[in-house]
């Protein structure tokens, strides 16, 4: 057995992850052709690199098919209700910062807090005959957040991309989405609610607590934790 480390297979998240490990003396690299998802680990013994989609890292960690994995806090919290008992947070990695927020049209001069959103939702439903729609791909986090705040008369509608455009396209009245600088929100005539921060997310190294660890895996894990902890 080798200790399996799951890392995003593409883009900036992969590059930044490689850089982060390199700074700690562990060289991760893709091997083979550009299109082949195979990787290598140098500078430490007994660890294998698994390249996969960042969205699949939570599931693989929770199933114990990988021992370590890099992905955002947002995806872990959204996809794993019991993440505290399944995973340990090894290290926040200091990149991939993004906030999951509730945003509404800037036109809504009357809405600045969740309290306002709730009152506006009641009036909206009475007038239009359907519940105020909030577009998101973070269904569980958004619902728990709004339920905790006692907001009623809304409906979540699924949006897997270009969520900021749903209000203008009139498929939703508000959104719950990830933002880093807020620029896309502004460009789409949206504003963040004053108390609308659901979660602050960043790329994080996680350890699976449910995976099986052979004695040599424990040794490799200890060596890795010493470098990155």
């Amino acid at each position, binding site marked *: 057995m080798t200790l399996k480390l799951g890392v995003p297979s593409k883009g900036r998240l992969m590059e930044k992850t490689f850089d982060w490990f390199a700074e700690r003396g562990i060289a991760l690299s893709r091997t083979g052709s550009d299109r082949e998802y195979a990787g290598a680990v140098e500078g430490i013994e007994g660890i294998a690199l698994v390249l996969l989609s960042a969205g699949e890292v939570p599931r693989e960690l929770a199933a114990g098919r990988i021992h370590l994995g890099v992905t955002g806090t947002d995806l872990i919290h959204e996809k794993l209700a019991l993440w505290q008992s399944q995973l340990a947070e090894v290290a926040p990695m200091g990149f991939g910062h993004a906030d999951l927020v509730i945003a509404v049209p800037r036109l809504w001069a009357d809405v600045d807090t969740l309290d306002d959103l709730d009152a506006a939702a009641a009036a909206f439903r009475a007038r239009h005959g359907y519940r105020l729609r909030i577009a998101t791909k973070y269904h569980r986090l958004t*619902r728990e957040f709004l339920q905790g705040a006692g907001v009623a008369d809304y409906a979540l509608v699924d949006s897997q991309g270009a969520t900021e455009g749903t209000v203008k396209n009139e498929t939703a009245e508000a959104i719950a989405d990830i933002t880093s600088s807020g620029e896309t929100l502004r460009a789409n005539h949206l504003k963040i609610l004053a108390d609308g921060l659901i979660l602050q997310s960043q790329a994080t190294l996680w350890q699976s607590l449910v995976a099986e660890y052979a004695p040599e895996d424990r040794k490799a894990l200890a060596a890795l934790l010493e470098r990155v902890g």
Partner: protein
Amino acid sequence: MATRAEVLARAAALRSVFERAGALTVETPILQPAELLLDLYGEDIRARAYVTSDALRGEQMLRPDFTVPVVQMHMAQGAEPARYTYAGEVFRRQESDAGRANEYMQVGYEVFDRADVAAADAEVFALFSEVVAGLGLRAATGDIGILMAAVAGLETTEARRAALMRHIWRPKRFRALIDRFAGRTPVPPTRAALLASDDPFADIGADIGVRTREEVEARIETLRADAASPPLGGAQLAALEALAEVRGPSPVALKRLDRLAGDLPTIRPALERTRARLAAMEARGIDTATLDFEASYGRTSMEYYDGFVFGFYAPGRDDLPAVATGGRYDALTRRLGNGSEIPAVGGVLRPGLMILLEAGS
């Protein structure tokens, strides 16, 4: 753990008890149209029910309870008065507690009868007491109609009464509204700035979305009117807050509520209904002198109970959900009745929990 066969046998036996009490056995489909349940309970139901879908019928839910389909069936074709019983699985999505069952048997008894509301409440409660007798359970009772009547009678604006009424079933939000209407929560600076502004639309970018500028203006008007209204306060507010805390043996609790009715006179009819119910319970052999009554009981359950509410719990077993729960849901029959309505009360039992408790004792 009870085997499935044991639970099924107990469910059938319980259903026979309800049949002997005069109920007609009914069946309902397991798959329910999601739209109706979402409409009734809002998005929160998605956290509690399994949703599935196909391309033809759209979203369907695995039935989270029997009440809604039984009410629908009665409103569509039922003769009056009617008593129904049923036994079957319900499905509850669990997202935080792996120890809680996501599929379990429920046996229910529902009464649709306009003749004597107090007698119907007492009939259901007495029947459930009898069925769970011997398990050493604690009974909890309440009446959501009392708090609703108190809110309806508050001397404040209609908008404030409506806002409070809408959140009766969300105690945390209800309390936040009370604090705001009473002027205990400071006005958020952005709200103050909005109300002082000559041009609230100075920095809005483009007009986008289904919610129009006119709707925004209408709400700003509402906010201005609210800011100009005197804060909720005085004896009425104190009485409302005391009411939510009333808890004790029924006669003691009722006496306290009677005193609060001095400042909240609109609760008197609800108190009379409670008194009539207690008399009807007494006539059925329930010891009401020791029966617990809590004015806020049932506020966190699914929001269809609007009168009498009850539950039976195993003392010292806070890890277990209620063995039986029930209540009155007149408003639900109105929502599902397409113009007609009928007073309705009922409850459900969990045979699996009954067997578990018997095995433990």
